[in-house]
């Protein structure tokens, strides 16, 4: 079972955005398909429930159409979308108060995937170990990694501000969080050995 988004299919979002801005429907649809999972996880990381997160993602795309000609650098489109999603989340939270927040931060048991039984066990075990390791990270690292995992690769560099990092800090912060996660996973593996 793979993620919904195949990273190898990620095209240059700046090029997609420029084509969409010129009025082409197909690149706009591709931009929406490519980046909606990212915006979904941004909204969920901001603590909104599933229903309001859907509203926020849709509203963010409408804002993009409205403001697309004010974005000077097309390479900034991912950062712009993340910032707008967060702003929409704050607006919704201010309006809905606690009702909008997740009542239960607990994560459900992973749904059963379909490949071979062995693979399932291994994969589920890998997921469980990853989840256990994540739980030991700081909240800041956990939320950052959750969002960063859905960012198209070439877009890392322009993301500093929209992810609330100091300029240029995203790479190192992301690197540090990943290193910590890897260390926790390694330690877990050591501990599991007989």
């Amino acid at each position, binding site marked *: 079972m793979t993620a*919904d988004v195949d990273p190898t299919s990620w095209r240059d979002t700046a090029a997609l955005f420029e084509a969409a801005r010129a009025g082409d429907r197909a690149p*706009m649809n591709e931009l929406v398909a490519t980046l909606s999972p990212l915006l979904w996880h941004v909204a969920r990381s901001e603590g909104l429930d599933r*229903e309001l997160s859907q*509203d926020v*993602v849709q509203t963010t795309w*409408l804002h993009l159409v409205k403001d697309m000609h004010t974005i000077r650098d097309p390479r900034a489109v991912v950062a712009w979308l993340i910032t707008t999603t967060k702003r929409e989340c704050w*607006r919704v939270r201010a309006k809905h108060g606690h009702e909008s927040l997740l009542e239960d931060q607990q994560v459900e048991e992973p749904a059963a995937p379909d490949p071979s039984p062995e693979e399932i066990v291994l994969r589920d075990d890998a997921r469980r170990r990853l989840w256990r390791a994540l739980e030991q990270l700081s909240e800041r690292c956990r939320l950052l990694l959750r969002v960063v995992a859905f960012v198209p690769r070439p877009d*890392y560099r322009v993301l500093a501000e929209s992810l609330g990092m100091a300029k240029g800090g995203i790479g190192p912060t992301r690197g540090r969080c990943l290193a910590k*996660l890897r260390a926790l996973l390694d330690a877990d593996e050591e501990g599991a050995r007989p």
Partner: protein
Amino acid sequence: MTRPDDQNLLEGLRDLFSVLDPMPPDLVLHSQFAVDLDQLDLAVAVPAHEARLAGVRSRARTRLVSFDAPAMTVTVELRLRDDGTTRVDGWLTPPQDRTVELRTEHGSTTARALRGRFVFDAVVPGLAQIQVHDTDGGAVVTPAIVL
């Protein structure tokens, strides 16, 4: 720089969160429908407090939902009829005379709002979007509504 094992780890994270908290499958389609606009001078109408798009998504026979734009609120009552179509009764607040467009996957119909009130009588099931046009070529635009 991104190391190969970083990529594996990020893939693992993507997989994990896609399984634990999957994006609803319809969200991409709904968003693509919402932004499929000829209208570029637009004001975004966001689902209002009482409404929440839950109302917009649910299959109850009668739903009341409203959307807030900077200069007006668009409220619609959606009533499912026995033949499966939906009657849409709408109000613009503050009341004003406008052209209202109901865009569906099958095309657009327009109605005249008089003192803010407008009606679309028999709308086929599917996605819909309301656009309230002003005389300067601008419009207030809602997200996709599931009828």
